[in-house]
């Protein structure tokens, strides 16, 4: 199981501003290890953000995203005290889902 994400969600005017740090190796599949063997690709493929039962962000990622990725976005319609849920699935089928409570601006 991957380490938990670090999520900060707060009001910025009438929008919710979300910052997420994910813990993931994000292997490109091009790197070789010490013995010269290729390290298999291992990366987050799909990211989904939901709020109040609605998907507010959906992203398809690839190998060009850095290790331990950081994502920053805003969406409309959230209020302090409500929850934002972020989940990812990687190319090996591993998944992680975390949620955060929106704090006041």
């Amino acid at each position, binding site marked *: 199981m991957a*380490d938990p994400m670090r999520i900060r969600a707060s009001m910025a005017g009438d929008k919710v501003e979300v*910052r*997420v*740090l994910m813990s993931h190796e994000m292997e490109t599949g091009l790197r070789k290890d010490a013995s010269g063997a290729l*390290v298999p690709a291992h990366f987050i493929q799909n990211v989904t953000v939901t709020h109040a039962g609605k998907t507010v962000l959906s992203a398809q990622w690839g190998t060009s995203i850095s290790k331990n990725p950081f994502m920053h976005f805003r969406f409309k319609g959230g209020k302090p005290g409500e929850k934002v849920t972020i989940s990812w699935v990687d190319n090996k089928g591993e998944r992680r889902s975390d949620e955060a409570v929106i704090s006041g601006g």
Partner: protein
Amino acid sequence: MPFHRLPAAVLVGVLAATLPCICAAQQDTQKEIERYRQLLAEGNPADLFEARGEELWKTPRGPKKASLEQCDLGLGAGVLKGAFAQLPRYFADTDRVQDLESRLVTCRVTLQGIDPAEATRNPFSAPGRPSDMEALASFVAGQSRGMKLAAPLRHEKELEAFRVGEQLFYRRAGPHDFACVSCHGENGKRIRLQELPKLTDPHDAQKIFTTWPAYRVSQGSVRTMQHRLYDCYWQMRHPQMDYTSEASIALEVFMAKYANSGEIQAPGLKR
């Protein structure tokens, strides 16, 4: 007819025309790097290491099934806040000067009963092989964020470590005839785009020494001050700097003197 002179004259003209552009470009590059760092700083992945370090700190582990919560980092058993701001320092129980990492090793050995060789087996992580030491160091350092560095320099052994560190800093050796001072003795030096701090100048030292441990984007991991020294020694082609060795701590005591009263911004974020 001095035909052969013409290309030279043309070249001088071209140089004169491009020089201001190069300077402007360099300033722009510097600004862009600053901007890039600011963008990165909003999402410092060192946060992830701090979180893992906190978990490791609080979880009972080792043969004694104990957590590290009773670890004495210099301000008494279990005091975390501000402890990092007063390291390295002399510890009476071990009768030596210790830095953060060597003290963490001591606690893992005495409190948790972990074998000393095991406690120092994996100090620097590699992809797929995370290091507990990097996570623990990040967590403890983060507990002193915003405080001013005040590493003591009073005890006889602290003073001795300072003198040893001073010798090591200035003494050139190895196949490249290098010393720390070769790179860190002048203001305004850099390797490619990486500025080199003058470590004996408080202005530089206060800004740099206080940002370790730091997440290194190029390495995808938090690196500690011990790793910085290990890498510097490798770059100088000196014999390997052993983890938490007396020599490494002496150099830290030396650097801390000039960095004292700088604000701790650890764990930081670096290229």
